[in-house]
């Protein structure tokens, strides 16, 4: 008979404490400093899956949990600038995927006005695929504003980094995942770190239901299912 688990699984939202720093410790520290009340702007850039969105979400979460004001928009959702309505000038505003804004006159203007709206604090946290000099930004006054604070490059995790990340994130859930197990997961599951981490939630439930540890045979059986 199979045991049905109670839904007591630990949630694992993006926070500063579960961010795998690796080569991106400086970005982590700078984002945290901003979230804790530091002045901005801060601009993080790097390839997909290097953890930019995680840091933005962690910063917004930290501020919101502390009762502060924060906003979070993505360049992919231009209609959502309105969600920043009513934010006070000292709010933390995170703008993800700035590369989607570059080259679009209306969106560039919106981002420019964002800078002018949140003076003098400018607690603005940006993430993009490229640095301000390489993005096809038309407005020079916007490009220089984006580059007016620390511009920090983030590196994507290597395969072995991903192994460490998985082991660590499993640990956050109270799961004991060996590096071999993590490598197996990475070879069979999705390659994107976020999706692999999401797999952990399913594994967590399955392990609880089967009262099993995350051994290789268990992982193999799980993937077969």
């Amino acid at each position, binding site marked *: 008979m199979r045991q049905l688990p109670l839904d007591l699984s630990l949630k694992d939202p993006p926070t500063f404490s579960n961010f795998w720093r690796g080569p991106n410790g400086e970005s982590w520290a700078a984002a945290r400093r901003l979230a804790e009340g530091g002045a901005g702007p801060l601009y993080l850039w790097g390839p997909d899956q290097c953890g930019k969105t995680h840091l933005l*979400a962690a910063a917004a979460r930290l501020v919101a949990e502390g009762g502060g*004001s924060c906003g979070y928009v993505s360049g992919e959702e231009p209609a959502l600038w309105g969600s920043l*309505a009513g934010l006070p000038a000292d709010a933390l505003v995170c703008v993800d995927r700035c590369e989607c804004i570059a080259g679009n006159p209306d969106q560039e*203007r919106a981002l420019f006005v964002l800078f002018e709206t949140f003076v003098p604090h400018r607690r603005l946290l940006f993430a993009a695929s490229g*640095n301000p000099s390489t993005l096809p930004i038309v407005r020079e006054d916007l490009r220089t504003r984006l580059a007016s604070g620390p511009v920090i490059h983030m590196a994507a995790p290597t395969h072995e980094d991903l192994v460490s990340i998985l082991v660590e994130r499993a640990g956050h859930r109270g799961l004991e995942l060996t590096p071999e197990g993590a490598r197996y997961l990475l070879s069979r599951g999705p390659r994107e770190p976020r999706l692999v981490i999401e797999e952990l939630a399913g594994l967590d439930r399955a392990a609880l239901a089967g009262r099993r540890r995350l051994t290789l045979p268990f992982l193999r059986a799980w993937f077969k299912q």
Partner: protein
Amino acid sequence: MTLDLRSPIKICATVSQPVIWKKCLDRLEEELSAQQFNTWIRPLQAEWNKNHLRLYAPNRFVMDWVKDRFMERINELTEQYQGGLGPVTVTVLIGTHNGTAATEQVKISAQPVRRNQTPVGRLNPQFTFDTHVEGKSNQLARAAARQVGENPGGAYNPLFIYGGVGLGKTHLMQAAGNLLISHKPEARVSYVHSERFVQDMVKALQHNAINEFKKHYRSLDALLIDDIQFFAGKERSQEEFFHTFNALLEGQRQVIITADRFPKEFVGVEERLVSRFGSGLTVSIEPPELETRVAILIKKAEQEGVALPDDVAFFVAKRVRSNVRELEGALRRLLASANFTGRPIDMTLATESLKDLLAFQERLVTISNIQKLVAEYYKIRVGDLSSKSRSRQVTRPRQLAMALAKELTHHSLPEIGKEFGGRDHSTVIHACRKVEELLKEDPRISEDYGNLMRILTT
């Protein structure tokens, strides 16, 4: 990812589903702060499929937050408003749909809406003359701004400051405003970016509040209007500004204007406005020279409580030339590194922390790029720069290109000579010395060199 709520919710057949969600929204708007509602609930889009309510969140962050913080309440409210008939499941997922929006979808706006944010007209108190660094490139503009701050509405009215981006036009303009207020605290001084002026005017027209708009601007003691070039092509705004401008000047109240170019160079701005812009004092701000850039870095570091070593200040200032904003960005990057690593600020740390920035600039400025630009600038062929020709038409551009290559790249003298038709390193030295002399003696060469340098480093 979906979240299925386990507790069944009943639906009332007499209430339409969009109305149920609308009621939920009204209630949530009452219960939450405007900021919370606008940040987390307003972006949600609702879609009904039989008894299944799908809430689309714009991104993962919003989705997670809604699930964590508001699902329980949404669940309670849908249950309450459905009258206990029929089970309903609620799902939050990422995406959009074409159906009913959660709330009236905010249209793509040229500006984020701001209700309780920085009010129009508030000056940034950080922009003062004390925090401004004077150099050759801005001393006239600074003196004029100070004069205006001390004696508003006098001879320098309007004061028109122009120059490239990130050179401190806004800083000087606001420093004048802050100085004025420090002498006369009751003065009504308003700073507005020209794009904001246009947007506010459009809003005022839409809401039949144009008289209040006019009254606000025409009752000021000083109006500081930034980046006026954005008025180009906006005839209605120009018209309104023209009358505001006249009203203020007639009342001997101060107007300070900034732009990225000289008034006569405006395209799409009415002639009468252009001539008004130039009727007071027009001053320019140039990119700061090396010594000023160093002074800026040292002063900004001091403001952060850090003593920046001279060699590091020169290292950064030599490499970031085009504008002050990016210079500050480089400094903040360096300070962030020092803070993170706990290491002292020295040349090693500066080289490491700024390596991305410097590598990018070096990639941009190559001998080949310099040759192409110089050839284009002087309307000669790139090949002429490497030819044996000694005509003045070719020699001067060649000497300038060599000097720029020496200044802007890390190539050795023999390497530079090789790229210019296999010339000897002594030819490059001669070219650099000649350019140095010409910069002091010949204003035209000096202007050409400045222009080329600006294009290459911006």
